[in-house]
């Protein structure tokens, strides 16, 4: 069971929760379990091709899964998935 941290922009879709739990051995499985439990998140998390929405960044603990193995990244017991919107930085 992984913990998923929900950003403010998605909280209305999960009943206002700041974090939820979901099962899955890989990032994609955990996020699909989240989307099944909270269907309003599905179209925000995933694009029509089933891949991550390009404006969603998902971190396994603190590392961006896109630079790891994407949705196939293995999630261990006690890991935390952090969902964040893609924001501009750069001073």
């Amino acid at each position, binding site marked *: 069971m992984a913990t998923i941290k929900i950003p403010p*922009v*998605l909280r209305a879709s999960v009943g206002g929760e700041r974090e939820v739990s979901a099962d899955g051995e890989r990032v994609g499985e955990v996020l699909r379990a989240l989307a099944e439990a909270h269907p309003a998140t599905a179209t925000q998390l995933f694009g029509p091709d089933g891949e991550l929405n390009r404006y969603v960044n998902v971190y396994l603990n*603190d590392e*961006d899964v*896109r630079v790891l193995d994407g949705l196939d990244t293995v999630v261990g017991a006690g890991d935390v998935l952090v969902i964040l*919107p893609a*924001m*501009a*930085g*750069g001073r």
Partner: protein
Amino acid sequence: MSLPELKNRPCGGRYGDVVQSIGNTPLVELKRLSPKPGVRIWAKLESRNPTGSVKDRVARAMIEDAEEKGAIVPGQTILEPTSGNTGISLAMICAYKGYGVKVVMPDNVTPERTQLLKMYGAEIVYSDGTKGSNGAVELALEMAAADARYYMPYQYGNAANPLAHYNGTAVEILEELDDVAAFVAGLGTGGTLMGNGRRLKEAFGDNVKIVAAEPMQGEPVQGLRSLDDGFIPPIIDLALLDRKIFVTNGDAITWTRKLLDEEGIFAGVSSGAIARVAVRIAGELDEGNVVFIVADDGWKYLSSGLYTLPPDQIQNLESTLWW
């Protein structure tokens, strides 16, 4: 033990004016932060540029590129979205060269940035701070579309931004080090990582790991209406990155203090975050050089008290756009 002096530019070089003096920054070893003897950590002090940040390189490259293309003429106004440093660099360079500057900046940055921008003669348009830098980009794009007299370099999409590093910062690193195991920089526009990353990968292939440290934006600056208001700078190519790690504001400030207290490096908040990631990567290596970028100095953060107050007494930790 002191190192041999740099042979290439022993006095930092001789230049015809302040704009030409941008770059050629020191590379300083941080022995106290190194977790093991075989791994050497080097800080590239971009804070030693004329306005105190790495953005001097980027601003000069974008303005000179526009001049070469005939896209700007003296007297014209340059418009740019920025949370401070790029605007300050543009303002200095344009004041010297005779262009006007208008910057679009979130209203929740540290107050020193406003003073520095005004000092160099820039005009400031504030954007909604709850939208972070996204809000500044959105507003600047609207202003540029509505008035053709503006020239917007647009650091997020301008190839001159990464090229400033490909042809500058990375070349200087390669002049001083025979091998680099990891290069760590902050991810904002992506210019530093893309430009240095490409040049270092050309030199060392996959033996060098390119690592991004990015800010975990505090909740008060995640004021998006929907995820579709998100923003990905067009110059970023994630395929070039080997790791991408976020750092919370609290950790970034803790490590900004460590840089100061343990190594005497007076740096801005992003440099603390970058140092934290650099030390972590160093701990995963057995040997080699880890280079990280000190993106700016600490002067423009002094009013926050972050160098002197206990971390839990720093005001607006989560709602300030630190980097």
